């Protein structure tokens, strides 16, 4: 008799607990999908012990889930920036979890790098993910390239951007323009001589032929710019600013009008700087 009552009691307790659990979960899900998901997903140090050898698969599942959630949120925002701190914190937690479970999965590093830098307005946080990518994938140029782009566009740190572009330009499949871009930034940051030395050092490395051809042309141009700048400085000390580069030829500071690697003449800008035709910016 007691056994039957005991069974009934256990059943009642189990039913009540299940109902309470369902109500709590449903309420939690209604409150905030992200908060509920965070409560239901254990932190990385615990989760990694309970993937039962399927860390990479679980990481891929979490990645698809994160992308689906992000896509849904992005659609709701209708083109506005994804800047809600709670949502960004949730995204960071998910990305950290995915990377912890599968550090060799490259997509999350790039995604986090761009998302936190542009939408989250936290470029250093974004760069930290890309730098982790640089360490994890030393042969993939994209991480150094995107980190350099963030330093250049968002932090206006040309020195770091230039170093990263230079690093990326040495890696397989890197676009050939990267070395030129690095050289432009180096010139803006540290002057023509440093940019020239950097490119000459790069030429001594074992580069793909396509990149080497472009760098040789860039070195030829930079050398012409450097010689012209030296002549210009000497001219200025004696006569003041010249009206054109022809003044330097007439006074003997230059033997002839300087040209870049393509044979196009170098130009003297209104600010008194030397510019090659292929360069988009003045220095």
């Amino acid at each position: 008799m007691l056994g039957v009552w005991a069974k009934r009691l256990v059943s009642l307790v189990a039913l009540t607990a299940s109902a309470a659990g369902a109500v709590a979960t449903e309420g939690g899900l209604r409150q905030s999908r992200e908060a509920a998901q965070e409560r239901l997903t254990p932190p990385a140090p615990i989760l990694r012990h309970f993937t039962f050898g399927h860390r990479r698969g679980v990481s891929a599942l979490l990645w698809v889930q994160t992308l689906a959630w992000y896509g849904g949120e992005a659609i709701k925002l209708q083109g506005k920036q994804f800047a809600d701190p709670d949502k960004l914190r949730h995204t960071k937690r998910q990305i950290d979890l995915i990377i912890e479970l599968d550090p060799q999965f490259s997509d999350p590093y790039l995604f986090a790098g761009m998302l936190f830098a542009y939408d989250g307005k936290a470029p250093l946080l974004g760069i930290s993910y890309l730098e982790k990518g640089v360490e994890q994938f030393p042969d993939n140029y994209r991480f150094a390239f995107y980190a350099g782009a963030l330093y250049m566009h968002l932090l206006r740190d040309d020195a770091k951007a230039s170093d990263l572009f230079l690093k990326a330009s040495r890696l397989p499949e890197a676009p050939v323009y990267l070395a030129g871009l690095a050289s432009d930034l180096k010139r803006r940051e540290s002057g023509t001589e440093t940019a020239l030395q950097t490119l000459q050092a790069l030429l001594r490395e074992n580069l793909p032929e396509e990149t080497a051809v472009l760098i040789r042309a860039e070195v030829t141009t930079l050398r012409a710019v450097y010689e012209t700048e030296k002549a210009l400085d000497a001219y200025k000390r004696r006569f003041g600013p010249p009206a054109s580069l022809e003044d330097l030829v007439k006074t003997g500071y230059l033997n002839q009008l300087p040209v870049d690697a393509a044979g196009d003449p170098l130009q003297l800008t209104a600010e008194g700087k030397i510019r090659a035709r292929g360069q988009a910016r003045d220095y």
Partner: protein
Amino acid sequence: MWPLAKYTFLESIRDRIYLGFFTGLVVLNLLFLAVGSSPWGLTNHIVERLGWLAVDVMLSLLTAIYAVNNLNRERERKILYGHLTLPLGRSRYLLGKALGITMSLTLLAFVGATVIIVGDWYLTAVESVPFHMYWMVPSVMLKCMILLGYAILLTQLSSSALTATLFTLGLYLISNGAEELLGLAANLSGLSRTLVEGVYYLIPNLQLVDFEQASLYAGGVTPERLGLGLGYAAAYVTATLVLACLVFGRKDL
């Protein structure tokens, strides 16, 4: 032994496990397609990882459930007695069953890998067919064979199919996370550490025969890695089958 293996293999076709497995994988690929047609696209990394996970889990579950049920069903339906009236020892009966189930699982692993490879190639439009995914076959098969050995042993030791299945599934979960157990032990101290370390040495380490990491990231499985996996699996399968034969030989049917 060979006719029994062939009979078991054909029996698995009659049981429609191929149809179920193939349907499951096609549904999975359709799911990939649904996710893949979203604006952010689907990279081949995702299809390969999820595909590997799906085939691994589905075949492991199938091994545990099908092997136990196949053996148990023959005992419950008295088919076993018919087999044992043939000039066939009890050990040979078990080995024939093991061989037949292994043949079925090998074919299923090939089917699974092919479906995932075709899905990966078609959905993510990779330039070349991702043949490296065929490493899934030996990887999943070695795991399944270790599990099969245990499933057969546990069927002989357990009184019901349910307990044998549950024990095999539990072993599958723990064995897949054997390396994690060692990591967990490092964070513990005293008796709990000794206990966790003890469990680690008692159970098979299925991660030793898992070639996913080497195949997807490290550019291929080295002969040393393959040799280690084969040797480890062979030792475990031999030990469990010998034990199962010993138990079955003394069992009062």
